[in-house]
């Protein structure tokens, strides 16, 4: 495998990915987009503009390609170098800076490759990076290992809905016991944050409506029972329907922040520290 890695001058994450390739004898060519690789990066960007993610702070580096596939960000790049496409779904381009790495989704990939995922996380963390890891409760065994091996610096669990709606929202069959197990594991982690986005949901009858305050109460109850505590930090967030992949959901008008008060009041029945995201 011969890799081209596009880097930015002084980019620490780029150095870590290059270090991985050197340690594993993977041949690579580096193109610094601000120096000798400027022209090559221009050509690459022109040809692959739709495949390159651009966040609020611009393009995240490094970007690697083997001529067939492109991977962007430290996590996605090392995952691809380490395990090919087995770790698809576990990593995305994050938004945090400096030593913090996010865009790590424990529920996003195939649990059969949990060992490979743990190895990648260990490598990144072993290079003095801090990991912000998220889960929606699926792949609870991997969450248990991440906590047990002290790999996360921040853990966020997005409890996306009452158990009976999980499959409806994710559009796949869900083993809800996984969600309950994850709630019990996550309390062992001191920096855990639990949250729910108040999102529009396509109901079983085909209609679309926001999660209701009563459904948020059901989630809060689930968390209380799952964690055995009514003092978990629990955050209610506004969702952005326009960011949904579902065109019908995109048309739903966003909620106003003051509409979340009734949700918070319901949640506090079971979780006394429930708050609205500021």
């Amino acid at each position, binding site marked *: 495998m011969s890799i081209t890695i596009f880097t*930015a001058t002084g980019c620490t994450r780029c150095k870590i990915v290059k270090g991985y390739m050197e340690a594993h004898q993977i041949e690579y060519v580096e193109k610094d*987009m*601000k120096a000798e690789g*400027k022209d090559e*990066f*221009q*050509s690459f*960007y*022109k040809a692959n*503009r739709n495949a390159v993610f*651009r966040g609020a*702070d*611009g*393009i995240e*580096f490094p970007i690697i390609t083997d001529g067939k596939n492109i991977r962007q960000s430290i996590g996605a790049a090392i995952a691809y170098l380490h395990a090919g496409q087995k770790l698809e779904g576990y990593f995305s381009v994050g938004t945090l800076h400096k030593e913090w790495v996010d865009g790590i989704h424990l529920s996003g990939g195939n649990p059969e490759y949990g060992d490979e995922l743990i190895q990648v996380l260990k490598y990144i963390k072993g290079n003095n990076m801090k990991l912000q890891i998220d889960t929606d409760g699926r792949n609870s065994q991997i969450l248990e290992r991440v906590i047990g091996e002290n790999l996360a610096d921040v853990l966020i669990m997005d409890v996306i809905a009452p158990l009976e709606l999980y499959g409806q929202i994710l559009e796949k069959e869900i083993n809800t016991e996984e969600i309950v197990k994850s709630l019990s594991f996550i309390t062992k982690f001191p920096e855990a944050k639990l949250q729910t986005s108040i999102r529009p949901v396509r109901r079983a009858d085909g209609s679309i409506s926001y999660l209701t305050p009563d459904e948020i109460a059901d989630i809060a109850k689930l968390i209380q029972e799952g964690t055995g505590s009514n003092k978990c930090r629990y955050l209610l967030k506004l969702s952005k329907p326009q960011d949904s992949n579902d065109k019908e959901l995109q048309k739903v008008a966003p909620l106003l922040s003051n509409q979340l008060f009734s949700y918070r009041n319901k949640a506090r029945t079971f979780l006394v520290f429930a708050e609205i995201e500021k």
Partner: protein
Amino acid sequence: MAQTKVALEELNYDEQISYFPEHTWVRVKEDNITIGISDYAQDQLGDLIFVELPAVGDEFQRGETFGQAESAKTVSSLIMPISGKVTAVNEALEDAPDLLNRTPYQEGWIINIEAKDMTELKELLTLDQYKELLRNQA
């Protein structure tokens, strides 16, 4: 746009062109009307890696977006300084977007147009007015 990166007096200007507050410029030479971005604009954007150009024949009103300039750090809309129909695009920018960085008033021109309303030219800024605008934005 963000705070200037190079001192305003270090930027290049062209006295033979008129400026638009959104940092595009217009040059009228005989029947030819050319549009580009100012040195200030390219400096704010940083090293450009892609320029999205309109097609010949596209029509735009003054103030409308006619293209997009992209650097690694940011994406900026290109704003029409006067209304008109595109008669030519600088195809060299497709392979060398950094022409906009290196020579924004010459080889880095972006489009030629046929103006819809020549009186709009009178509403553009002179060099002194544009410099004043930049000083006020700094």
